[in-house]
């Protein structure tokens, strides 16, 4: 049908201009499933066991009065496609794939995890090892920089955009890009002096240090970006508005104390669900994507 939709796929509408798909006005297009399906991809966050979410799921069940099934998923594409085809109702999408989910699958994110004091997110860092001859970002010129993979936000898109705009450094022209596959590999590679420098998510680095995989002084940070949001949680656009409201409330009314979720995420200093909007929190990500020429068309 004909309606304003911005970058959204043509099956969605965005009349209110908040950049996410509106709930369909026609009640026949709204759905009210008996079982809610919830999935979560750990990519730049620590991997978690299924059991970490169990207390939260109980809470969600109680709040919505519906069955909830949880799937820990290890692939973004599967998650987005599942939501697009109506097989997924509640999800947490990681930073980089959030815009794609919003535009392609009708995802409506509304919260992210934050620490008790309200701080949230992580930073992209460019790291090197002591004595590499790289003291500041400009020194990368003529040397080698390790990315993770072309779809990662902090592992590729953010550093590419920043190096280009702030330092006028282009891959291939000014430095040799290599892809390590994972943040862990990039960090380990720098610590082992296999890579001269790498751009990584500092949340992963902190985890590796706390687990003694590397020593804190094995790596030196030469650049730290602004804060990026972490995994955004939300629902699919065509759930009934009342149901969406209940789910929202469930997130914000969840009491973390003594739950399995706290036990797991307190390690990364997270302790509450913070309300947010995609329009505001993902602004920086969208800018980076635009700078990299990434389109959200699902083709």
């Amino acid at each position, binding site marked *: 049908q004909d309606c304003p939709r911005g970058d959204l796929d043509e099956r969605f509408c965005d009349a209110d201009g908040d950049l996410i798909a509106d709930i369909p006005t026609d009640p026949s297009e709204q759905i009210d499933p008996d*079982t809610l*399906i919830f999935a979560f991809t750990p990519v730049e966050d620590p991997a978690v066991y299924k059991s970490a979410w169990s207390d939260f799921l109980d809470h969600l069940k109680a709040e919505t009065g519906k069955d909830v*099934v949880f799937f820990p998923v290890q*692939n*973004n*594409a599967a998650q*987005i*496609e599942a939501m*697009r*085809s*109506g*097989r997924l109702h509640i999800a947490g999408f990681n930073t980089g*794939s959030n815009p*794609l989910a919003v535009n*392609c699958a009708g995802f409506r994110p509304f919260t992210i995890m934050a620490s008790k004091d309200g701080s949230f997110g992580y930073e992209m860092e460019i790291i090197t090892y002591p004595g590499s001859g790289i003291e500041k970002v400009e020194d990368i010129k003529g040397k080698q920089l*390790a990315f993770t*993979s*072309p*779809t990662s936000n902090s592992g590729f898109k953010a550093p590419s955009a920043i190096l280009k705009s702030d330092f006028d450094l282009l891959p291939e022209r000014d430095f040799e890009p*290599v*892809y*390590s*596959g*994972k943040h862990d*590999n990039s960090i*380990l*590679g720098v610590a*082992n002096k*296999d*890579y001269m420098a790498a751009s990584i998510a500092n949340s992963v680095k902190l985890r590796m240090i706390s687990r003694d995989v590397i020593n804190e002084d094995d790596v030196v940070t030469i650049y730290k970006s602004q804060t990026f949001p972490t995994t955004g949680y939300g629902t699919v656009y065509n759930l009934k508005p009342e149901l969406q409201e209940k789910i929202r409330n469930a997130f914000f009314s969840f009491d973390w104390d003594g739950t399995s979720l706290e036990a797991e995420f307190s390690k990364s200093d997270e302790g509450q669900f913070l309300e947010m909007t995609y329009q505001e929190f993902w602004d920086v990500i969208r800018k980076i994507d635009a700078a990299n020429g*990434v389109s959200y068309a*699902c*083709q």
Partner: protein
Amino acid sequence: MPVLEQEGTQIWRRRTTGQSLVRWFGWLLGVAVFVYCWQIISASTTWFFVWDAPRIANDIWTRATPPKWDYITQLGRPIWDTLNIATLGTIIALFLAVPVAFLAARNTTPSAVFIRPVALLIIVSTRSINSLIWALLLIAIIGPGVFAGVIAIAIRSIGFCAKLLYEAIEEIDHTQVEAITATGASRWQIMAYGIVPQILPAFAGIAVFRWDINIRESTVLGLVGAGGIGLQLSASLNVLAWPQVSLILIVILIAVMISEWVSAKVRGAII
């Protein structure tokens, strides 16, 4: 005895009553286990979804076609890397797998009690230890890159090649080996003349089959930062670039068909 005397007539059954009871019980148990597993799967499946499956399949199909042909220009280097990694990895794997297979086959192992279990353990563990672990180990030792990819692929392939090969060795014709033994040949000569010619077709088949599996073993390569076509595949998937995905699939399909053709040719020539 399955032959029963009953009222003067001899009745024949394939198995004795006891045997068939055991078999029926076995089948029953097997079916029960399967049904149980199926119910677990079925219980966590939303069968309602199955009905509009064609619509979804069609949605993805229209997004995936036509393939983005000009993407092939960006695939040159990854294809080259993949080819090298698969070829070199397979060659190294075969070098390592052949001795292991000889040690594991019942009819060639020096000792069925001590050496065979070790060989089997090698076969089993190289294929059981998952790629992630090999990748991490190799990154620690070699550092990331194509070389780590080659080694990772090689180690991963040992189990497969050695297993199929040792089964082939166990099936050889023993009289040919005896004839060579009777000439006073040494242990190695017996292998080279009596056994190797007999397993050559199996060897060729296994080598080519593993090669095309290795072309597809993208997961490992991405993990060690070795690039290759697998990395392109997951990158394309992650941005839902289905036309690129379908192009990559066509490339892989071509590799499979080439390998199928080569394997038929080589086996035909050797058999």
